[in-house]
């Protein structure tokens, strides 16, 4: 393919990216642009050119060794989500703008730690960026079919122009806002698009190689297994290699937190914590897909080309060899996408650190304090843009000057080892409040020194002198000091070896110095806030402990230098409103100081913000013990408030329940009284009749005509019967309550039982012109107490008659036979069960006040007795709710009576 055409395609692609970023910035608030999918795809900036090309190279040379770099994130991703949630919360609270800012914040907004972290990251990432540029250069030449060699003159090198354009892109979309803790939608969305492209193109080439060039995975495997050395490629080489795997996995796990671009996309660009829920499965899936074909492309390459040093670029060479230039071009664009997103985000993140944690806190604070706000905004933006170009130029120069044959993979690993020096200060600092800045600084410097000796120095010596003497014999020929086999540990590969030693030394110093020296009170204050973030996040500004003399006007002056007079006033008002302070507050408190520092943090970094605010207030030193005491107290206050809140809501709940119970009792009491009244009434009524009749019979013994006399005697007889019936009912109910032993179980036919009931009730129904509809019944013989079931059916049917429609009453009787039981239904039209009655109809003592029949025969015991009978049969009885044109009662009886 011609050089010229390729350049045009690259330029068009970059223009497209600019346009996507432009659209994204314009629609930054659109919902789908803020979706968790965009977030997860932007996380995939993790897969750089190293992944895209380098993995294939490693797979070709050493089999499965390419995997741990992806396994680390995949395995540890749930843990990542857990830790990330905390980091995101803290970062949003404190307006953190980069990982250097975050670590500096944890150690009391330490200026030195911010700067040190920035420098470590620059040392680690610049070669990493240059590696990406190298990938562009090499792949460009493969596609353009020109030999890979050093450009003799910068301006003839396409890579230079690409690097320059990327710097323009990052500078344009990365510095739109002065507050670096704000989102960069344009960059994030274009990254997400690139993540889709690179995965898509990589899958295409994977399918092409595996299924087009070869006959599927089995074919490749079979052909490979013919080759000598094959076993070595697919096995796990013992103890040493196990360590290599373990540490590489750990290394890559650290990397997904500590890589500046990773921190940028996962923390700074995060919209809401909820996005993590989507990422927890989607991101590992992405990585998994990315590695699906790696081994087959590598083997396909080996089978086609044999062992060549160019294994990194099998994805390009394979289609080119088979004349498929278009496919090679797609692969190239995929790799290009990987490079572009990685370079832009890394540069953006690094430039923020360089400006906010290195340049501004060490050189510009005095200048800022004397300049108006619009000038300062300009300065800050310029510093960032300048940093972006500087970083890219440095990377370019690194790539031009260190052009010895280093594989993508190894230089990537070196970068990982360097940045992992931040791991102890970062991870331990998140969970251990005693971790101090002294420990962090000494640990990082010591760890970096070890890395320098065991990894960087040999690399530099070898690349400049070409001699491996240092590597083979060690410093001063002391074999214990061999850089790749320190103290005789010779079974690890160089990056893992360096990682092992540097991390051990680093962690050791971090722990020892943190324990040996008590940290500064301010530092401990932040340590508590971050480690115990869950408790303190509820305290808003109150977790910041500060004592001294400060005036609102002085602080406002500083704020105005960056926000402008107007914005500063708006912010102050919102602060005063939030804490319900008067508008004319003169003396500033700890909360305002904390608030102001946070306001400035995004623009100039936490450490600078602290220094600037400190310059206009007079702080009293507080002892560490006092800080801890105050924190403990406020924590207790919070806990107390929370427990008070919990208690009071619990009390409300309990009192509500008490009220309900009380109402229930009142209702029961009322029901009981009503029942007693009813019973008394029912008992007294026949007694009244008997008494009156007897009185008359006695008083008028002789003069009373015989027919009158017999009438009164009849009254006595009737009322006596009625009296005993009622008494029997009450006793009956009591007896039923005592259990099922009072039932007489015999084989009976439910059909016959029903007919008996209907026989006795037909007459009443007929006299009231009520139609009884009965579905076809089959004989159904099972064990039950017939008299009792007759009682139940009689009760249900007389209730049905009682409440039936008085004009056109219809009573329906139906039954259903189920596997283990039979279900009977008695339904009447007319008056529905009143809502207020529904829950109580089966209670004893309850009588509906809505009966339309004169003198109910019952005593309020009918349904209660029925319920007891059915339950003693181990069945159920209930009324259907929500029927509006009548009532529908059901009962179920089990077909087999099991003994208890």
């Amino acid at each position, binding site marked *: 393919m011609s050089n010229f055409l390729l350049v045009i395609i690259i330029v068009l692609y970059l223009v497209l990216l600019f346009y996507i970023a432009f659209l994204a910035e314009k629609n930054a608030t659109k919902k789908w642009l803020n979706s968790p999918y965009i977030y997860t795809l932007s996380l995939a900036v993790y897969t750089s050119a190293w992944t895209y090309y380098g993995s294939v190279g490693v797979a070709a040379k050493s089999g499965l060794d390419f995997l741990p770099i992806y396994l680390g994130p995949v395995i540890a991703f749930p843990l990542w989500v857990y830790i990330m949630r905390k980091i995101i919360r803290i970062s949003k609270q404190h307006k953190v703008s980069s990982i250097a800012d975050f670590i500096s914040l944890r150690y009391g907004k330490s200026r030195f730690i911010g700067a040190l972290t920035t420098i470590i990251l620059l040392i680690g990432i610049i070669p990493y960026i240059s590696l990406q540029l190298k990938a562009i250069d090499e792949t460009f030449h493969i596609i353009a079919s020109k030999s890979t060699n050093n450009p003799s003159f910068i301006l003839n090198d396409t890579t230079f122009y690409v690097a320059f354009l990327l710097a323009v892109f990052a500078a344009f979309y990365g510095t739109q806002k002065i507050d670096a803790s704000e989102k960069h939608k344009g960059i994030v969305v274009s990254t997400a698009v690139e993540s889709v492209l690179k995965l898509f193109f990589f899958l295409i080439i994977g399918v092409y190689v595996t299924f087009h060039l070869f006959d599927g995975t089995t074919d490749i495997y079979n052909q490979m297994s013919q080759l000598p050395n094959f076993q070595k490629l697919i096995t796990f080489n013992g103890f040493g290699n196990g360590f290599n795997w373990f540490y590489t996995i750990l290394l890559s796990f650290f990397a997904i937190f500590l890589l500046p671009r990773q921190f940028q996309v996962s923390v700074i660009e995060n919209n809401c914590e909820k996005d993590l829920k989507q990422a927890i499965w989607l991101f590992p899936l992405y990585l998994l897909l990315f590695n699906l074909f790696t081994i087959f492309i590598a083997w396909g390459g080996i089978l086609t080309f044999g062992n060549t040093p160019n294994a990194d670029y099998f994805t390009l060479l394979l289609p080119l060899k088979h004349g498929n230039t278009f496919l090679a071009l797609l692969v190239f664009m995929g790799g290009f996408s990987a490079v572009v997103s990685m370079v832009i985000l890394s540069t953006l993140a690094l430039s923020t650190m360089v400006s906010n944690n290195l340049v501004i806190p060490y050189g510009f604070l005095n200048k800022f304090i004397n300049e108006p706000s619009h000038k300062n905004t300009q300065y800050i933006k310029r510093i960032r843009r300048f940093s972006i170009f500087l970083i890219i130029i440095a990377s370019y120069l690194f790539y031009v000057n260190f052009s010895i044959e280093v594989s993508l993979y190894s230089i990537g690993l070196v970068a990982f080892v360097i940045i992992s020096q931040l791991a102890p200060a970062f991870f331990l600092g998140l969970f251990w409040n005693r971790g101090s800045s002294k420990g962090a600084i000494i640990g990082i410097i010591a760890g970096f020194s070890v890395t320098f000796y065991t990894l960087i120095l040999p690399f530099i010596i070898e690349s400049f002198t070409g001699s491996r003497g240092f590597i083979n014999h060690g410093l001063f020929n002391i074999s214990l000091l061999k850089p790749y086999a320190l103290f005789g540990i010779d079974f690890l590969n160089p990056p893992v070896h360096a990682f092992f030693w540097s991390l051990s030394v680093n962690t050791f110093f971090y722990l020892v110095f943190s324990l040996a020296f008590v940290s500064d009170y301010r530092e401990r204050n932040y340590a508590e806030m971050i480690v115990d973030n869950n408790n303190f996040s509820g305290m808003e500004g109150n977790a910041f402990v500060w004592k001294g003399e400060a005036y609102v006007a002085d602080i406002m002056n500083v704020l105005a230098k960056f926000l402008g007079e107007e914005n500063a006033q708006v912010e102050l008002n919102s602060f005063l409103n939030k804490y319900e302070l008067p508008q004319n507050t003169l003396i500033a408190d700890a909360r305002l100081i904390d608030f102001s520092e946070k306001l400035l943090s995004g623009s100039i970094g936490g450490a600078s913000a602290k220094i600037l605010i400190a310059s206009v207030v007079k702080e009293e030193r507080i002892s560490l013990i006092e800080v801890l005491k105050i924190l403990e107290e406020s924590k207790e206050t919070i806990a107390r408030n929370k427990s008070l809140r919990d208690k009071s809501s619990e009390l409300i709940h309990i009192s509500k329940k008490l009220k309900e119970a009380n109402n229930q009792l009142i209702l029961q009491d009322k029901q009981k009284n009503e029942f007693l*009244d009813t019973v*008394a*009434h029912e008992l*007294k*009524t*026949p*007694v*009244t*009749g*008997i*008494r*009156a*009749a007897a*009185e*008359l019979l006695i*008083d008028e013994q002789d003069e009373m005509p015989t027919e*009158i006399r017999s*009438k*009164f005697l009849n*009254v006595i007889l*009737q*009322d006596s019967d009625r009296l005993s019936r009622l008494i029997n009912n009450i006793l009956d109910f009591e007896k039923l309550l005592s259990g099922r032993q009072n039932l007489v179980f015999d084989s009976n036919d439910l059909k016959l039982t029903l007919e008996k009931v209907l026989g006795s009730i037909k007459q009443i129904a007929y006299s009231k012109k009520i139609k009884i509809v009965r579905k076809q019944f089959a004989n159904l013989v099972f064990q039950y107490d017939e008299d009792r079931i007759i009682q139940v059916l009689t009760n249900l049917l007389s209730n049905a008659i009682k409440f039936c429609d008085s004009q056109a009453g219809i009573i329906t009787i139906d039954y259903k036979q189920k596997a283990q039981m039979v279900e009977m239904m008695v339904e009447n039209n007319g008056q529905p069960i009143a809502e207020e009655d529904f829950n109580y109809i089966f209670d004893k003592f309850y009588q509906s006040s809505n*009966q*339309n*029949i*004169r*003198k109910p025969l019952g005593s309020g015991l009918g349904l209660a007795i029925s319920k007891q009978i059915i339950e003693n049969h181990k069945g159920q009885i209930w009324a259907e709710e929500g029927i509006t044109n009548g009532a529908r009662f059901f009962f179920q009886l089990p077909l087999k009576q099991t003994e208890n």
Partner: protein
Amino acid sequence: MNKKILIVDDEPNIVMTLEYSLKKMNFEVFIARDGSEALESLKQVIPDVILLDIMMPNVDGYQTIKQIKENKDFANIKIVFLSAKNREADIKKGFEYGADKYLVKPFSIKKVIAEIMELCEE
């Protein structure tokens, strides 16, 4: 002229004994089986005394006396509650509704007649 008595009760046996005794004492007796029948019969005849049961279906004794008391035409009617409710609170409530007498069931017929005579002489 014979005094008119209206018996309001849903228990036929009780009504029967009262009716028999009162007629023997030369009262003119009317019968209603609940409150609504009673109010209906008041449109035809205004009695001197009403014997009023309390626990009746539909319109009970309390509702009945309330409606009677609201009507000025019935101002002269004497009302006797005749009820099984014999708690002090029940009796007090009966008088609060404006009853002239409160007799408890089971009652002595002689006592009922004596109370009615007393009311008629007032």
